[in-house]
């Protein structure tokens, strides 16, 4: 069975980008959320194998959401989606327990590499 992914990003365009990359890579996109709050709720409900998490979002940012999700499931696998120049925040997210990160603009092979490695380790 295909592994399931929850995509979190406030921009619909970005969600679509990641979604297409993941679908091409043979993953099932089980849900989408546009802020941290929705992400936490969706995580509880859908129990995805992996979450891709944007950092800057309204309502609740990605780092906060990572902490909340890991509080629910300490083995949750979360990959941060970062823009150039957000190094400090990415480090914070990794400290909080995110497993990896990808940098916008997304390159399909990089995204899939990160997702594959995260799910197989």
């Amino acid at each position, binding site marked *: 069975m295909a592994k399931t992914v929850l995509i979190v990003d406030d921009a619909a365009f970005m969600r679509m980008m990641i979604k297409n990359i993941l679908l091409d890579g043979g993953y099932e996109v089980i849900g989408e959320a546009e802020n941290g709050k929705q992400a936490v709720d969706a995580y509880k409900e859908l129990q995805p194998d992996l979450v891709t998490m944007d950092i800057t979002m309204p309502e609740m940012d990605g780092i906060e959401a990572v902490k909340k999700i890991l509080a629910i499931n300490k083995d949750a696998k979360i990959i941060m989606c*970062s*823009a*150039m*120049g*957000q*190094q400090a925040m*990415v*480090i914070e997210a*990794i400290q909080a327990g995110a497993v*990896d*990160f990808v*940098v916008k*603009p997304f390159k399909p092979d*990089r995204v899939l*590499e*990160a997702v594959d*490695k995260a799910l197989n*380790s």
Partner: protein
Amino acid sequence: MDTNSQYLQMFFDESAEYLQILNENVLMLEDNPDDEEIINAVFRAAHSLKGMAATMNFSKLTNLTHKIENILDKVRNKELHITEDIIDLLFAGIDYIKTLVDDLKKSGEEVTDISGYVEKLTRYLDGSYQSDDNNKDRGSQNSFKLTEKEKKQISLKLQETDSVYQIKVVLKEDCLLKNVRGYMVLKKAQELGFLVKSNPPKDTIEDEDFGFEIYLILVSSLNKEKIREELLNIVDVEEVECLNLDFVKKEAKDEDNEKTVNRSKKNLSNFEVSPTVRVDIKKLDNLMNMVGELLINKTRLEGLKISSEIYQDIIQQLDRVTMELHHIVMQIRMVPIGGIFNRFPRIVRDLAKELGKEVDLRIEGAETELDRSIIDELADPLIHILRNAVDHGIELPGEREKKGKNRTGTILLKAYQKGSEIIIEVEDDGTGINVDQLAAKAVEMGLTTHEEIESMDEREKLFFIFHPGLSTSDEVTDISGRGVGMDVVKRIVESLDGQVFIESEKDVGTRFTISLPLTLAITQALMVKVNQEIFAIPLGAISETLMINPDDIRQVRGQDVIVLRDSTIPIVEGARQLNLEVEYGNFKKKAEIPVVIINSGERQVGLIVDELLNQQEIVIKSLGNYLVNIKNISGATIVGDGDVALILDVRNIA
């Protein structure tokens, strides 16, 4: 070897100069121990020497200059005071540098033993910095030395089944957010065992102040293969070398034996990344030119259209090779924009201090890469904008508090890539530009009339700031306000084929956005035909192409326009813009008219052409000094059949 000796020559020449500077300035320092200028001069010279030595792979010299630099850094940060001892130490260091350089001149090897002196330097560094021994050996890869404390740690942690490893992790060169990757490597290492130390240390990694290699000393119960596998599993880790340091294990038990792991470092050095070289930028320009020529000939060859399998094969191969070549040359020419950004915090700091303001300069995207020739030109315009932001933008702390803002103003300098363009933004949260005052000034100077101002929107009014001689500041200061500056900014950016935009809101702030092409030499272009002649339009300026019917054309105040997705876009005839000698207006007789929608900032214009041909890579050639002022033409290129096609300067058309 010939080229190498050429660099060597340059290296020797320059080292002599720097040694001179060092000697002179340390001498002056003796009499003026508090003069920051002098300390900085010494520091810069030592730093340049270090950079040169590292580039040439002279490890002793690199290590030595690095240590001296560390001492100077402490002096600069007032952690260490200039005493006679320090002066002596510095002079001794300069002599050692000279001896090493002489060694290299004679034999090509760094013969002289400097370990005693380096030891002494290290002790000086320790003396004032006992609290944080991480900072020792910062960035220097040749002295991966374990301190007593660290050896004790090892011996405490070490179980019988454990091993001590020296691990070298190499990150991929195209690795993004290198510091985060480095952080992940450290984090992973900590999961695998006890991380005794890393070189560079964690703070340096987080500051992204390192190359692509990280050295680790790790105590772990896992075997080499497992550690290697785990670290390789991190994205962007290119290579992991794992070396057993069992002698350290013995040493750790035998505590008074002070040895370095330099020995094992020797074995690892086989895996060192290839050495880098410095190349005169002119040579790269030449190379780029030659690639351009090759590209032109390739296009010509393609134009032959011979129907033979071998021909097709060759063309395909040639295509691949030239593309690759072009790519590589471009990459070589690219340098991170951080190189010029690094100077800015200092400039902003000094200026803010002078003006009694509190300013926090934040820099993002310093790793963004841009063609070297563009970067060199960019420093001045950016300094102009930053100075303006500090001087006119950010208010005095008291004033800011009155407005309910943070006392400290923020200037955000941000660079990023967007498609084939590099965007640089300078944003301040200051007072904003007073648009009405600007417009009034413009009228006063006779640039425009009250009536015209009435019909202008904010953006158009703001553009007056780019007019020579216009400043909103009533008083002229040393820093800005003399009305020179913004027009220079615009001119330089445009000479680089870029554009400047400006947005400003009262009491919220001002943002300058500069967009630049990635490179100036080769670009993608749309080829079009106007009156039997071929013209190239750079792709970056085109938003779309479409076919319209004559019925689609409306008239607004005598101007032909079309309506495209609810916006009205003026259309102009290519032949007329280019002053071609034909009868204008013929296009209206055609059933379908090809139109190229051109972007210039926020404005769009439809350019009517006779025919859309194809998209291709063009090599931009300047028209030379005689033809520099031809309207609407920015250059020329050579197309497949060897003909010259002119490149449209779309900024003026739109």
